[in-house]
């Protein structure tokens, strides 16, 4: 920052009219002096400028307030100099007090730092994901349109080309509506071959998000007609990396999957789209050849921009009507289908909302506990200083003077805590940004939010000052002679009651946090103990996608995958090889309508559906799944032989209840003649994640249902990662232009599927431990202080014959009452409050008794430990010396 701007900031203390009139001259004057000064004198000048701004800036504001001031006071030092001097004195005193009692100061500062840091970090994440507006033009008018099948409870299905075209043609609500389909492409030609994320989009896509072209043009109507569709729009990032930001790139060819496309446009750097980081956009072809667009293959995400005067509700009711019309028009294909409009913001936020809100509540509790702790400690400290204050008051210190000193001391602690808190927050934000598994808004990135930081700082500082003001206020009201009498033993009932309440509250809040953390940990264990239906250890997975242009519609792809499978099977290190078009636990899925032979579909039954997977004959053994009935696929189940299928247990139960499906027949709804015989039943394999329910799945031999992309699973007895070079060699030998992607061990795949749960559990666990530590520190601090206050009294009782054990029992008993009340309150309210986190739990009730008992026991033992030390100290008090102390 340059000196001019710094001085202008100082000048802001002056009233605006004065600044407007003389600001320029003042600045010139100061800068001229500064230019003449060197070294230390420069610092001196700045110091003087600061004092000038402080004294005369505020002073000048008062000039404007009171025109009828005493004229002779309008110059020089009318903000009394002694205030600055005493402030300096109080500051020095506060720092000395901190050094003298480093224990209390350390706990207070640490408490504040952790609370501020954790709060700011988590709230920053919340702010980024939930509160900050989406980075699109008028984001509130963006919606997504889904296909819905209310009868099946499915509200958000992807959309078929025919439905999209009908919606686009019939609707009146949208200014633009666009379809999107993600893809991965091989970018070849100049430079290394590279797998890049691409998107097929219909022409209005860029209009929906209000994005124009930086160079060239965006898509227009007619770009999606086969033969004229070999066009691409480049993202700004790809244009920069691959084409060196060359503006003349428009019109040049680019090789994608070995086919030449023409670059028609480049997007600006601020162009952002939801759910994708696509580098290349190409026109989405709805209609291949002469057949009409399909209504049964659901593949698109549909985004739309509402017209300015249309609300989401209006759009929803219009789309409902259109859905019903289409249902009448296509009774077989669209039975039970409708359209569902949801705001885009909700789509993006929903998946993480509950987790973030739970975390937010957790850190809110931490902040509360921290505030209680600080209040407790400061109250205790103030009680210990009643004598000191009384002495100062007796020798002439004014009351305002005493109060100010206490406030300054609390302020110093608060500022120190804030400074460390800022450091913790910065670090915490980095940690969150790096660890947050499913960043709902990758375009946003988590950054430290300044408003959030300021809010947290303000909260803690206000609390610290209040905690300081409370005893100070009490002190000035009490007779200064009182604490000096008889060693100042009169306890203050108000403060005692308050402290009692604070310990209870602290225990209650901590138990709430512990219950929350305990429940998520139990959920996580429940998730991990779920049967995945496959073996995760000793398995490597990788995916290969064959360019359609080179491999055509199936035969070549099947041959390629078959060849690769047999080559890999020949390797000594590899025990089993299999491949699946839509492998488990990865998020790849598809769904098709099926017809079960002989099954009568009642009017209330939803459409019969199954999730298809094309697999190689060894796939079931390769993933370690089990055949429940019938047989697996054989090499003889090829394109020429009879069509066969294997189904999972869920499908068998749902569509052939009480009967064996082996030997029965099934077909896809849109392939009337192709019946397939069910030859086997495989156990249920978790597809969307360990905690997700299993859908009906139908497995087909790859040779009878070719797929251009397969995920291979290799089983080995050794380290799965050591297989990678072998795989790479074989793939290269077969096709040197094919990149491998998603190379992971099956264990990594499984871990990814529970990542968010693990993240939530880890964070909540950390917060719970933090709360426990804070609570223990707080309880210890207060009890220790209480014991030291009561030392003379205990001394008297010991002298009069009380047994040390009795004294200890009494102190423990008192503490126990507070802790027990806090526990009952906390656990009781958790029964109610934990209903709020039901959505993030799995396999555990919010009122899980085991968790409650464990939390109660652990909190009780930690609290008792914190009390035991001061109680033991009370027991070992030497009566003689304590009496001498009080005399």
């Amino acid at each position, binding site marked *: 920052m340059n000196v001019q701007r710094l001085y202008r900031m100082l000048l802001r203390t002056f009233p605006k009219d*004065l600044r407007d009139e*003389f600001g320029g001259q*003042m600045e010139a*004057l100061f800068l001229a002096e500064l230019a003449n000064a060197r070294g230390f004198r420069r610092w001196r000048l700045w110091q003087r*400028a600061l004092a000038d701004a402080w004294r*005369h800036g505020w002073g*000048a504001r008062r*000039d404007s307030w009171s025109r009828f001031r005493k004229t*002779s006071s309008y*110059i020089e030092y009318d903000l009394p100099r002694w205030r600055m001097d005493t402030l300096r004195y109080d500051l020095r005193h506060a720092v000395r007090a901190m050094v003298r009692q480093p224990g209390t100061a350390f706990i207070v500062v640490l408490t504040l730092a952790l609370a501020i840091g954790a709060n700011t970090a988590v709230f920053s994440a919340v702010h980024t994901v939930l509160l900050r507006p989406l980075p699109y033009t008028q984001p509130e008018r963006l919606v997504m349109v889904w296909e819905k099948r209310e009868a099946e409870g499915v509200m958000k299905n992807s959309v078929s080309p025919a439905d999209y075209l009908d919606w686009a043609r019939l609707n009146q609500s949208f200014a633009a509506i666009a379809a999107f389909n993600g893809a991965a492409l091989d970018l070849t030609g100049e430079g290394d071959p590279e797998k890049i994320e691409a998107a097929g989009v219909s022409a209005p896509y860029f209009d929906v998000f209000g994005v124009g072209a930086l160079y060239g043009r965006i898509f227009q109507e007619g770009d999606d007609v086969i033969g004229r569709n070999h066009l691409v729009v480049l993202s700004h990032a790809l244009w920069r990396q691959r084409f060196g930001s060359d503006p003349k790139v428009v019109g040049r060819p680019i090789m994608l999957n070995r086919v030449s496309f023409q670059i028609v446009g480049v997007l600006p750097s601020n162009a952002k789209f939801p759910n994708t980081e696509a580098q290349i956009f190409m026109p989405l072809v709805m209609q291949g050849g002469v057949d009409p667009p399909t209504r049964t293959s659901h593949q698109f995400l549909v985004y739309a921009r509402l017209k300015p005067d249309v609300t989401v509700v209006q759009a929803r009711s219009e789309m409902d009507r259109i859905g019903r019309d289409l249902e009448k028009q296509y009774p077989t294909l669209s039975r039970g289908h409708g359209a569902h409009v949801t705001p885009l913001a909700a789509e993006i936020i929903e998946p993480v909302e509950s987790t973030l809100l739970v975390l937010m509540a957790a850190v809110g509790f931490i902040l509360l506990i921290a505030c209680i702790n600080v209040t407790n400690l400061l109250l205790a400290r103030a009680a210990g200083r009643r004598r000191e204050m009384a002495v100062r008051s007796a020798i002439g210190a004014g009351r305002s003077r005493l109060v100010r000193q206490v406030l300054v001391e609390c302020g110093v602690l608060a500022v120190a805590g804030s400074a460390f808190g800022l450091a913790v927050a910065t670090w915490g934000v980095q940690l969150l940004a790096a660890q947050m598994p499913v960043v709902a808004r990758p375009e946003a990135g988590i950054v430290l939010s300044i408003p959030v930081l300021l809010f947290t700082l303000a909260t803690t500082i206000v609390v610290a000052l209040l905690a300081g003001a409370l005893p100070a206020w009490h002190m000035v009201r009490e007779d200064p002679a009182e604490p000096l009498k008889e060693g100042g033993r009169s306890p203050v009932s108000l403060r005692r009651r308050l402290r009692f309440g604070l310990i209870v509250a602290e225990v209650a809040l901590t138990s709430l946090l512990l219950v929350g953390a305990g429940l998520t940990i139990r959920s996580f264990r429940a998730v991990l103990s779920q049967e995945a239906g496959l073996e995760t250890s000793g398995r490597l997975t990788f995916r290969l996608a064959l360019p359609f242009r080179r491999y055509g519609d199936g035969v070549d792809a099947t041959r390629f995958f078959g060849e690769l499978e047999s080559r890999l099977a020949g390797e000594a290190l590899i025990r089993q090889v299999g491949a699946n078009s839509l492998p488990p636990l990865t998020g790849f899925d598809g769904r098709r309508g099926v017809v079960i032979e002989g099954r009568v579909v009642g009017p209330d039954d939803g459409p019969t559906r199954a999730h298809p997977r094309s697999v190689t004959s060894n796939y079931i053994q390769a993933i370690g799944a089990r055949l429940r009935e019938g047989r697996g696929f054989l090499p003889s189940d090829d394109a020429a032989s009879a069509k066969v299928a294997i189904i999972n247990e869920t499908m068998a139960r749902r569509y052939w209840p009480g009967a064996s499906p082996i030997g029965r027949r099934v077909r896809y709804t849109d392939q009337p003649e192709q019946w397939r015989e069910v030859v086997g039943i495989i156990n249920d394999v978790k597809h969307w994640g360990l905690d997700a329910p299993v859908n009906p799945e139908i497995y087909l031999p790859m040779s009878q249902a070719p797929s251009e992309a397969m995920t291979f699973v290799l089983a080995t007895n050794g380290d799965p990662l050591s297989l990678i070079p072998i795989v790479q060699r074989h793939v290269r030998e077969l096709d040197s232009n094919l990149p491998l992607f998603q190379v992971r061990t099956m264990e990594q795949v499984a871990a990814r599927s529970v990542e968010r749960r693990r993240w939530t559990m880890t964070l909540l666990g950390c917060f719970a431990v933090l709360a426990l530590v804070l609570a223990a520190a707080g309880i210890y601090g207060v009890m220790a202080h209480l014991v030291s206050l009561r030392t003379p009294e205990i001394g008297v009782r010991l002298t009069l014959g009380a047994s040390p054990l009795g004294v200890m029992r009494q102190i423990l008993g008192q503490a126990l009452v507070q802790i027990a009340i806090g526990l009952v309150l906390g656990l009781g309210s958790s029964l109610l409050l934990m209903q709020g986190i039901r959505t993030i739990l799995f396999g555990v009730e919010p009122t899980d008794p085991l968790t409650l008992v464990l939390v109660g026991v652990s909190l009780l033992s930690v609290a008792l430990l914190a009390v035991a030390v001061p109680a033991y100290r009370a027991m070992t008090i030497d009566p003689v010396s304590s009496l001498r102390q009080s005399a």
Partner: protein
Amino acid sequence: MPQDRDRPERFLPLKPLVLDILLALADGKRHGWSVVRDLQQREGGEKLLPGNFYRTLRCLRDDGLIEEAPGDANEDPGERRQYFRLTRLGTLVARAEARRIRAVMVDPRTQKLLKAR
């Protein structure tokens, strides 16, 4: 009839900075910057703070001790400076303060104090 607000005695005694400013303007109109230079040379250049100076200047103007004066006709309009001069009240106040100081100065005890130094 002059209001109570405008009696010169009401402003006495003057703070040193005020008297300095009034004295600097006693010879005729000057702009703020040249007053500052004048004062700094006399004061040893250290003590005058911009905030203090301009705040005082504004107060003096608001109280009617000084007023803004038109600049020189041949001045470059792009560099027009703000000129100030004493008002009648300002002159009266400065004169009253000068008289007060003179009364102090002619006192033989003052002379004795000064000699003793």
